């Protein structure tokens, strides 16, 4: 059950469960709204109800005035939907976000390749074509599990007739076990997409820094291929961290791009490569290499981070020590039901 909520000016549409507040639904969908007290007393989360009816619930009469109630305002932290509703909130409209409607797609498994000992590259050939922004993801239906699993699209958007996914086998994971062990070329699959607000803010221009951990490289891969195909002229750096050389993939692809595009820099880095192996490249963690490559100063960059949470957290720390702040840091986070349980201060919005 529940109702649909449209959030302007983003144009995003999400489902709000019965009894769920607008704020809770938005935060879980990755849409940040200003908020503070969380229980109707302070008024920080005030939004305009453009269409539809809401229940203001326990909003304090001092935080939501009578004239505001009459004028179509509500508090996102207490309001529940009584029908489908459109709100306008004070969220940043992003000039680089394209509004691509989410749709269901049917596809055929066209190829499966072993990228490493535990990562498979899977190409899904679409029955038609899909429009998406580099960095977005799809929700794939997997027959053996309830619900869907999210995977980033690794190919650039000008390749519209297929999607490439890079899927690591999650130890004990039912979904990835199926994809690794049972999925065959020629199988039919269904997914929905494209989702996500992780895309390159091209209108800002300037040098770009991509920090990727493990299969988190799939979004940056799509972004880099897209940028270079479009003729992006500012410097681009991709630092890709994995544990050991046997976990590294797509190296040939990126090294070939380096040869053809002198402003593209590619640094693979290994965190747990055995000493004395033949590896002559960088060792350590992604953020350490980034600090080394940029001499600890990141001012002027725009950074895009994709990978496991500890890598993201360490990288944000390194970037901020190097004086790059939230406005210039973008991360991909797959939110789960448990998100929001950890206590966060309101210092940061999205990182």
């Amino acid at each position: 059950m529940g109702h649909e909520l449209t959030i302007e000016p983003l144009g995003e549409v999400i489902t709000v469960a019965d009894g769920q507040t607008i704020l809770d639904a938005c935060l879980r969908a990755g849409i940040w709204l200003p908020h503070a007290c969380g229980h109707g007393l302070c008024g920080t989360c005030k939004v305009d109800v453009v269409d539809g009816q809401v229940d203001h619930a326990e909003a304090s009469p001092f935080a939501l005035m009578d004239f505001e109630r009459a004028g179509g305002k509500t508090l996102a932290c207490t309001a529940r939907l009584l029908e489908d509703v459109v709100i306008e909130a004070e969220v940043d409209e992003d000039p680089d976000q394209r509004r691509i409607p989410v749709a269901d797609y049917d596809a055929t498994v066209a190829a499966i390749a072993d990228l490493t000992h535990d990562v498979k590259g899977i190409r899904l050939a679409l029955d038609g074509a899909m429009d998406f922004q580099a960095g977005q993801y799809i929700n794939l239906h997997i027959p053996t599990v309830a619900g869907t699993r999210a995977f980033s699209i690794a190919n650039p958007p000008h390749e519209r007739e297929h999607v490439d996914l890079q899927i690591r086998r999650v130890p004990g994971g039912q979904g990835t076990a199926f994809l690794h062990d049972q999925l065959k070329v020629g199988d039919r699959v269904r997914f929905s997409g494209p989702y996500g607000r992780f895309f390159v803010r091209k209108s800002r221009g300037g040098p770009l820094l991509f920090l990727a951990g493990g299969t988190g490289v799939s979004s940056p891969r799509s972004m880099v291929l897209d940028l270079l195909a479009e003729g992006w002229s500012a410097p681009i750096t991709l630092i890709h961290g994995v544990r050991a050389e046997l976990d590294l993939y797509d190296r040939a692809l990126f090294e070939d791009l380096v040869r053809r595009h002198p402003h593209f820099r590619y640094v693979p880095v290994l965190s747990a490569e055995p000493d004395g192996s033949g590896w002559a490249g960088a060792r350590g963690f992604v953020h350490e290499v980034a600090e080394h490559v940029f001499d600890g100063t990141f001012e002027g960059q725009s950074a895009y981070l994709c990978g496991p949470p500890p890598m993201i957290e360490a990288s944000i720390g390194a970037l901020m020590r190097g004086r790059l702040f939230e406005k210039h840091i973008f991360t991909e986070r797959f939110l789960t039901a448990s998100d929001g349980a950890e206590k966060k201060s309101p210092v940061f919005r999205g990182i």
Partner: protein
Amino acid sequence: MTPKKLGLKQRYALMTRGLDWETTYQPMDKVFPYDRFEGIKIKDWSAWEDPFRLTMDAYWKFQGEKERKLYAVLDAFAQNNGQTGISDARYTNVLKLFLTGVSPLEYQAHRGFAFAGRHLRGVGPRVAAQMQSLDELRHVQTQIHTISHYNKYFDGLSEFRHMHDRVWYLSVPKSFFDDARTAGPFEYMIAIGFAFEYVLTNLLFVPFMSGAAYNGDMSTVTFGFSAQSDESRHMTLGIEVIKFLLEQDADNLPIVQRWVDKWFWRGHRVLGLVAMMMDYMLPKKVMSWKEAWEIYFTEAGGSLFTDLARYGLKVPKYADVATADAEHISHQNWATFYQYTHAAAFHTWMPDRAHMDWLSEKYPNTFDKYYRPRFEMWAEMEKQGQRFYNNSLPQLCQVCQIPMVYTEPGDPTKIAFRCSQVEGETYHFCSDGCKDIFDAEPQKYVQAWMPVQQIFQGNCGGASIPDVLAWYRLNAGADNMDYVGSPDEKLWNDWHAAAARAAG
């Protein structure tokens, strides 16, 4: 094709554009003479995000409705004789402490934000500080109006303005704000905007407002809701100011860190009055001070400082000492006021057995071991007609101005003494935190108006206790001394006897 509708943020930007013009008749540095000397470097004022986008026109409309609602409740409370429905007349001592100790700080905050708003050259913080300045004026005014109803019946409220400027223990909150207001505009914003309004505000307002709710004081609760709807702006301003300073220049970090350390410690010392109020003065308890500290500082402050660590900012120095103090501070403060009840503008009492049992339960590590025996002894002395009064004048800490009653970290049986020498004079401190603050700016703190020294110098009405109390405008025999035997107690008992007779 119809033009695209503007977002709220863009509309506000267009409506307020051009408010931050460059002056031409006078150089900008002369128009804004105070925003450089503290060493804070600002490269780009326009990077300040105004999260509220509130115009003055809308501001008046909001505050007007808040006032109408609050005053409707105050009228109803007065007409229904709400003062007879509170939990116990002892509760009014909480209001006395609040009106003499806290409300005047709202006025100081009003003046401080007006100053900061005038002297910060960026338009974003200027508008935000201006609105906060007006909020604070509204707060002091509504607090006075809310509590004035109690002044018709209870002692200790009528001379709050004079008392705030003169009474020994009220110099603790007063000097705290004087210190902030005599700092530069950036230090003021960190001291009050960030450290006080953000990090510590919940430890001040939640205890007082929840205390009011638990004890049947609907008028003060309603004032609390009315003020809390302004606090969102204040807290957001506090967060914005610290992010802005830390992002503008790497050289700002050590300056901001020093201010955060200083104002955390100063705030913690002032909040000792709230600790005592929560643990000893509320007839119906909300929670213990230690529990409040765990929720609002250890947990909420923990996540705040975890996030701020990304900027290189550290948890305030001596936060661990302050957390350890939460086991002791309320007991040590109440013991002090009990001993000096003749010089306090509110009533004191020894907790009864049920109250002491509650304290034992809430403070299993300290109350039975260090405080209960002393309190039981004092209660026993009282029973035998030998109520203990301390007739000496205490030595004060030169920074927080609290009598030197606090104990060594890790040893609650030993009073903590620290001192520094400046130009042949010795200055005393209650803690390492206060000594550090003094040592960083000795020339500021040697000028402090110290209540005890002023009495000895003959500046407080005379040489005897009655002379000084008269100068405080403290009505001896009514405003001070124990609750038992006070006019407040008699009034309360008369009301209840009358109510019992009416009920038959």
